[in-house]
Structure formats: C-alpha cells, structure tokens
C-alpha cells in the first residue's frame, strides 16, 4: 500500500468506525462500509485525490439476499484504486445517488436500475436506456435465466425444413 493510501485510510477510519479494509495488491484496496456512511466516505475519498470514478456497479448476492454496490475510485496522482463496497437489502433495493459528486454517476445508476432494479433516491431519470420493451426480471439478477428467455422469444434454427427457403451458406472463417 502506498503512503498516501495509508493516510487516506487513516482519515477514513477517523470518521467511520469498524471499517473493513482488504488489500488486494499494492495499489488496490477494498473497503466495506455500511450503506449510511457511503456518501461520507466517497466525498472524503474524492477530496483526498481519488476523484476519478471508474465505475459504479453491483453484485447480486442472491444467497445472502443482498446487493453489493461497488464504487471504484482511482487517483491520477499515485495510481491508487479504492473499491468502496456496501451491501443493501435485495428486496428493498434502494440507495442514494452520487450524481452530485460525479455527473456520469447518473448514467451508471440508470444502468443499474435497468439491469438490477436498484433505484437511487435523488436520481429521477430512471427510464430504460439499453433495452426496449423489456418485459421480464431485470436481466443481470441471478434469478433471471437468459437461456429460457431467449428460447421463449427468439426461436432457434431448427435443422429440419420448415422454413420457406433455406439460404445458401458460405464458410467464411476458414481460408477461402
């Protein structure tokens, strides 16, 4: 762990009790905190140089019945990465927005809403973005089965003649 990351963690510890720190490698640290402290932690990290938001994403821990929200912050000064993670209830998937800290968070959150069904307070723009006419569970949840959906919606090629015309096929990936 680099010095500046150590300092930052000390400062984080001063405002957040029982901080779980896990060192992944010398420039990558994962911290797990309670949902209510996330905003404080993120603003503190942003203030201490970790101002580049790489990604906001979520992990669906279906057995624990939790969503893990992950904020990855990066510092251009020392190359350190913080993975800020927090777990929220899967049933009431709701969290607060960070779009005032990073404008792009608006779209990450919109995406998470579309793919996981997590809603963010303060971010009203939750219209579907990537999928049109989606009529099933949010697709990245673990209990959604894409194969089943694909079978239901998009018929496979059946290798007997029921189509009107069997088009000609050229093998293209071999030479010639």
């Amino acid at each position: 762990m680099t010095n500046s990351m150590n300092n930052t963690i000390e400062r984080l510890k001063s405002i957040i009790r029982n901080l779980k720190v896990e060192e992944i490698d010398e420039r990558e640290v994962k911290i797990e905190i309670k949902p209510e402290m996330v905003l404080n932690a993120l603003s503190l990290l942003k203030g201490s140089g970790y101002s580049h938001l790489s990604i906001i994403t979520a992990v669906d821990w279906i057995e624990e019945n939790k969503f893990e929200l992950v904020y990855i912050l990066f510092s251009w000064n020392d190359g350190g990465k913080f993975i800020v993670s927090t777990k929220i209830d899967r049933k009431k998937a709701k969290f607060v927005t960070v779009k005032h800290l990073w404008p792009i968070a608006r779209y990450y959150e919109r995406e998470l809403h579309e793919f996981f069904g997590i809603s963010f307070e303060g971010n009203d723009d939750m219209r579907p973005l990537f999928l049109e006419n989606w009529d099933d569970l949010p697709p990245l949840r673990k209990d959604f089965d894409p194969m089943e959906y694909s079978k239901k919606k998009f018929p496979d090629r059946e290798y007997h003649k029921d189509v009107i015309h069997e088009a000609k096929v050229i093998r293209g990936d071999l030479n010639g």
Partner: protein
Amino acid sequence: MGEVKLFFGPNHPGMHGNFSVHMYVEGDTVERARPLPGFLHRGFEKLMERRLWYQNLALIPRICVPEPDINEVCYAMAIEKIAKIDVPERAQWIRMIILELARIASHMMSFPGIGGPLGLYTSSFWGVADRDRILDIFESLTGARIYHMFIVPGGVRKDLTPKIQDLIVKTLDYIEGRLPDYEDLIFKNRIVHTRLKGIALLDRETALELGVTGVGLRATGVPYDIRKVDPYLFYDKVDFEIPTATDGDAYSRVYLKYLEIYQSIKIIRQCLEKMPEGKVNVPLSEGSALRYKVPKGQAYVHIESTRGEYGYFMVSDGGEKPYRVAVRGASYPQTFIGVEKYLPGTRIEDVPIWLSTMDVCAPEVDR
C-alpha cells in the same frame, strides 16, 4: 417552434458503429441532443456468468471490436490477480507487444478515419490498408485477423517465433515510413486545420470532472496515462513518452493519436529487445483447463486502451464460472454526458467530427 429533429444513426453514414444520437436542431445548430445506446447490447456480463472460466476466453474479445486484445489482457490479468498466478516474464513482454500492435491497428483506423467526416476519403483508405499489415501479423501469430483469443490466463498461447519477430520489425519500419505521408495529407492541409481546430472543445476541468480518459484527457494538457500512473505488465521498464496537447479540440485529439503511433512503435522495439527467453505460459491447474476454478476474491484491473481507461471488475465465488464481471467501457463518459451536455451548440457539419474524435464507441458502452 421551429426545431427539427435529426437523427445520427444507427444507419446514418456519419455514425461510427451502431449508436444513435437524437438531435434537436434549430437552424444549423444542435439545441438538444440525446444519446440512445443499446443497439449492440448482448448482455455480456450475464453471458460470462453462464460460461466456464476458460470458455469465456472466446467470448470476451467480442466486447470491443476495433481493439479486442485489451479485453483478453484485462480478463487474464484479473484472474491472475485473484488467483495470484505468476506469469512468465516472456509472456508479459509478448502481451505488451500484442497490446501495442493492437493500439497501432486501432489508431491507424481512427486517425486517418477523420477523413470520413471531413470528406478526405483518401486518408481513410490508406489508413485501413496500412492497418491490414498489422492484421497480417496477428494472422500469422494467432491464426485470426480480428478476434485472436491469444492471451490466456497464465500467459499467452504461443511463443513469438523469430520469423514473426522479423515480420513485426519489417511492418513497423513500413508503417513508420508511411506516417509522414499522412502528415502531409492530413496535418499539413489548411482546410483540415479550419475544419478541426476549435471544434469539439473539452477543457481540462470538464474532462476531469466527467471522467474522460485517454486521448480526450491528454489533449487538454494533462499527461495522464494508466501505463505511467498505474503501470501494469512491464510498462515501467520501457522508455516512452506521453504526448499531450493543450487545446483540447478535435485537431489535437487526432494529432495525439498520430503521435502515439510513434510511441507504440518505440515500445514494441524495446520489447523485442528486452524480451528474455523462456516459457510463455504456466498451466493453471492439473487436469482439464475447462474445469479450472478461480479462488474466491475480487479484483479490478484497468489498462490504457486507445480510448482511455478500460477496466474489468471481477468477482469470483470460487466456482467454475465467474460470479460477476463488470466492464468499464472507456468511452462511457463522452458517450452519455458528453453527448447530452457538450454536443449542443455544435453545428451539424461538426457533429460527425465531434462523435468521431470524442471516440464514441458503441460496443463497449452497450456490452
């Protein structure tokens, strides 16, 4: 009153890839713009959860078309980080060579590709033809032109034979010899200057606030490159520079790409020199590689792609398949906030230039 709705894409010729921008135009100036992604959405992150660790190797290059190798490197490095695998040194050097070759290939398409929006088709034609030489290297190395599936967790699939090294050296010499022609054709043309300079401006504060990375950020004057700031592979052991510009406009972005090709050539030459002999991969596990299991853990790996920070966040629960993989597309900020906030005010003539120099790349955004 009087607004016209114009569409850029998906089958508009000014749009690279399958992406759509809805613009409300008044006169010839864009008043409002809305990005509409999702045409290339395949649900990669879900598909990867359904495939074995090794099967995924075939899937991941297809996330990003112009430069697929970054996915393979990211994926391999993430697994290696979680499983704490030591990769042979030679394999790391070969990976660097592949990455830089891919960078040249991508840049050879994108910087002369400015000829498309500008109408200077000759440059795009030349660029694509010269890029093909690099694809030839890939073909003789891996057997495929576009999707190589060459980099595997634990190393690379095959060694770089002297013959291929020779081919690389020759091709680099050729490309280095061709580059001045492009300079004459594009960067010395005064019409190009009038079309590109001062267009699609992005200042440093905005770029940093949005999280724009790569050439878009460096064109505003900050030498932020993940290869330098957070070195991966052996990028701290080679000597190269980060070209920067101060204007933050379309011209400086295009010109930076051109300059980066020189740096990549320099890196590859050093790699070929410094590469030690030895093994190029380590077996991951005993028995079938398909049954390989990555231990429980999480990691975030990011590398510098041609468009900026490209990252993989990987979660393993110790099973046969990845538990969750999230991909950070490099052009995510430009594509959404950029189009929505900074495209308005641009004129219709400059919209294709804006989109092409900001590197709006649909596949990695949609995934």
